[in-house]
């Protein structure tokens, strides 16, 4: 019989691992920590390298519903009114690995909640669910500096993943992460060189590489997904070829899929809108995973369910 060769690449590089969440033995209160990264090959090719850590899924919780689509609320009902109830629904009903808490109410041009109020929300969510937390500010540079400092302190022993540092604003959030040994998201805007640049800036500043998770900006299906797909692939390839400044796990925020009009518009010709929106996000998420994501931040429980099924099969289940 013909022997078909298995084309195993001899990669010299390896993706580092990042731990999110701290259990009692590390002084925290999480039931379980989440470990991401560690790959020694391209995604889902067991012949290239074993996948040590299943990609993790974080459920999105926002502390204001100002910009949250009505369509997405259906799955949670009134729970979305309260970050604690919302987080519990994610963990207890939909089995996510982490909660991603976006503190958008701190936006000085909107609700302008104080850093202390925001930190209090973080404390309540930490008390209500056993999973590790990803925490974002509102995207306003000066305000985020204060908010994330308060968040860092209130979750001091919990090893949060703080979002995010970018080239134009990284020092205060890097300091907030270093103060209490939290992990940190390094954001870059769809460009492999910028992805490397922010990692260099952060490590020069003193952040340990094992504390960094890269966010190269996932674009939605139909809104530039192909750019993200290729940037992600190039980052992963460069890392495996030995570029140590790109050897960090990757997070992709697929809630961006809800910005695509075709995902959420009521239009009979395009089929059931609930199904379509979920698959729009699931497709975006699958593209993120296949191109190298180690962690997803997701909005739709139905999309999470689909992605979990896909992951189950991709990692060797029936």
């Amino acid at each position: 019989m013909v022997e078909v060769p298995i084309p195993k690449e001899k990669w010299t590089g390896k993706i580092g691992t990042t731990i999110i969440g701290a259990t009692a033995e590390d002084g925290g209160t999480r039931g379980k920590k989440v470990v991401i990264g560690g790959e020694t090959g391209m995604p889902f090719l067991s012949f290239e390298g074993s996948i040590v850590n299943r990609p993790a899924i974080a459920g999105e919780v926002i502390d204001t519903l100002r910009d949250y689509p009505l369509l997405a609320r259906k799955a949670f009902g009134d729970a979305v009114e309260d970050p604690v109830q919302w987080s519990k629904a994610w963990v207890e009903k939909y089995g996510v690995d982490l909660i991603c808490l976006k503190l958008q109410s701190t936006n000085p041009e909107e609700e302008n909640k104080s850093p202390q109020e925001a930190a209090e929300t973080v404390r309540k969510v930490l008390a209500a669910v056993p999973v590790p937390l990803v925490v974002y500010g509102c995207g306003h540079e000066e305000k985020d500096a204060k908010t994330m400092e308060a968040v860092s302190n209130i979750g001091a022993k919990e090893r949060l993943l703080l979002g995010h540092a970018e080239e134009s604003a990284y020092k205060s959030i890097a300091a907030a992460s270093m103060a209490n040994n939290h992990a940190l998201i390094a954001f870059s805007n769809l460009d492999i060189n910028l992805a490397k640049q922010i990692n260099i800036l952060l490590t020069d500043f003193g952040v340990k590489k094992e504390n960094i998770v890269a966010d190269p900006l996932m674009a939605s299906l139909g809104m530039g997904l192909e750019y993200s797909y290729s940037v992600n692939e190039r980052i992963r390839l460069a890392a495996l070829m030995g570029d140590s400044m790109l050897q960090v796990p990757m997070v992709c925020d697929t809630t961006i899929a809800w910005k695509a009009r075709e995902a959420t518009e009521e239009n009979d010709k395009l089929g059931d809108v609930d199904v379509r929106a979920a698959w729009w996000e699931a497709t975006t998420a699958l593209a993120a995973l296949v191109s190298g994501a180690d962690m997803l931040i997701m909005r739709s429980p139905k999309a999470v369910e689909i992605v979990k099924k896909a992951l189950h099969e991709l990692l060797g289940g029936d």
Partner: protein
Amino acid sequence: MSCSEVIEVPTAMEIFKLLPKKNCGECKFPTCLAFAMQLANQKAKLEDCPYVSDQAKATLAASAAPPIRLVKIGTGSNAIEVGDETELYRHEKKFFHPTAYALIISDSSSDDEIKAKVEKAHSLRFERVGQLLKMDMIGIKNDSGNAERFAAVAEKVSKMTDLPMILVSDKPDAMKLAASKIAAKVPLLHGANLSNAEAMAAVAKETKCPLVVYEDTSLNQLADLVAKVKTAGVEDIVLDFGAKTLKDLIEKSTIIRKISVKKIFRGLGYPIFVYAGEGERAILRGLISTMKYGSIVAFDDIDPATALPLYVLRQNIYTDPQVPIQVKPDLYAINNPNEKSPLLFTTNFSLTYFTVVGDIEKSKIPVWLQVIDTEGLSVMTAFAAGKLTPEMVAKALEASGAKNKSKRGEIIIPGMVARMSSKLQELTGLKVIVGPKESSGLPKLLKSLE
């Protein structure tokens, strides 16, 4: 089968070994080695050597063939071409022949059901950024086990559709009857397996139709069967390795693509067919195959709500990385604007356009959006390259009659091109409002104008 199936891209030395080593000079080069070097650089033709053996010819011809065979299915403008890919990753160049999707109809269905399914296949199409996204093929499956029924349904459906067809049966007599009825449409025959390969290959050869080779135990078995079918005289081959799980699908598809394009192994250099079935598992198979090297994906059923994301994924993945998707330069009405609604402009780079539209829609404020033809460049890049000038904006506004649609006498321009303000004001007579540098700032600006 010998290891001669495993052929790397031949070097001059490897070619030299296959030459007669007579140094006769009849090829116009002084020595066989010199000739080999020219061959390796594709600057000479093997035919120039009068003494080369048939075996050497065959070996060298095989290594010159495209790594993945181009297979054509159907005829006319709807014909499908699959295969002939050269890259593992789209950023290396591009993926050339988009995954084709097929809807399969059972020949056990009633005539009404068959008609409805053909109509469904035809209705699963969407117009998107200037491209028609559609179901590409219709297949007929021989569930009835009856050769006459299979042939009758195939013939009937072939008259109802212009789409290329697939015939699915493992019975050579049924396949022969059906294929002979619609051979002029060049359907894809699915297919040959371990027990029917010889007879199926004969049908494919006789009807001149491409043939799927199906074997799900291992790629080794599949390669053996492909060799057998090829020896029987069939060239247009499509592979179906019967993926059991998504892991199986992504791994085997990757192995086949990689060993083929890297010319590590030539025996599986053919397009890949995936029978996805129906339901959520089928969509997942379709999505993975679209990203990872699937050429044809067949569904027993699929709905618009899942077909659209699948089609759009294909559109995204198969976009030429060097040629960004462009939207049609035009005046777009967003959120039902009237003459009191503000006027904005942006470029026709799809990513820019979608982001801007998304942010405007989020604001729920009605707006007229003028899209300028910048050859698919983003605002900053176009401006820097001289492809977004105040003259071009003025001309586009004139051509679209934008000033008659929005009568505010104002135009909001991207913050990145604030420098064109005074010139644009002079050319158009419109008051220029400099917008935010990032489109995420648009809702706030629009609210402030209300």
